[in-house]
């Protein structure tokens, strides 16, 4: 199945894109999506310890289930204000 991946800030710079479609086998979790992403882009892996994740624009966890067409976002530590 396919999920829509969103990347922000330095993660977006490292990947060279802020949006991409990732093919993963079902059933999948956020972690499945992340692992297939870093398999292609190992330079992202350092963020695994510090990032947050979101599914369909709601904060989520690496263990959360994802479904066909979901939007999965990987978020570096935030610096707003």
């Amino acid at each position, binding site marked *: 199945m396919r999920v829509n991946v*969103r990347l*922000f*800030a*330095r993660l*977006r*710079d490292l990947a060279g894109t802020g949006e991409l479609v990732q093919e993963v086998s079902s059933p999948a979790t956020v972690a499945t999506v992340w692992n297939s992403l870093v398999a292609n882009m190992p330079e992202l892996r350092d963020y695994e310890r*510090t*990032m*947050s994740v*979101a599914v369909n*624009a*709601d*904060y989520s966890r690496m263990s959360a289930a994802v479904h066909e067409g979901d939007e999965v*976002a990987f*978020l*570096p*530590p*935030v*610096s*707003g*204000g």
Partner: protein
Amino acid sequence: MAVPLVAITSAPLDLQALVNEIAAGASGDGAITSFAGLVRDHNQGRRVSFLEYEAYEPLAVRALTRIIDEARQAWPRVRVGVHHRIGRLEIGDASIIIAAASPHRADAFAACRYAIERVKQIVPIWKHEHFEGGDLWLEGATADPDNDEAREAARRIACA
């Protein structure tokens, strides 16, 4: 035009408009506090040229709404609004404005301070700092709205 209590916008921020909106819904209250965060010309020894802010907008709006709800739980009679600007900002531009109304000043000050501390903890917005000699993404807190320790830390700062 109605001023929303929560906004992520690339347009310049209007603190007076937000204060007026908060005041309009707070008749009889004794206090309104406001805060504006500005782009500073220096950061950690670097001379800052300008900042670019990026947001995950739908989640940023949700996170700001959550912060307002949290403030109401902590100080039930406060009314809070928060606007955050994104895109390129020059030195001195306001990047965030907050207004809080309450029957008494202590809660209005506390809610205003709480909101900015929580923004820095859980709102998916990032600063790309351009300084003399380079640029870098600033990275602060790992956003986790369910982290009660972070929330309690923000509440303690707000009440200090």
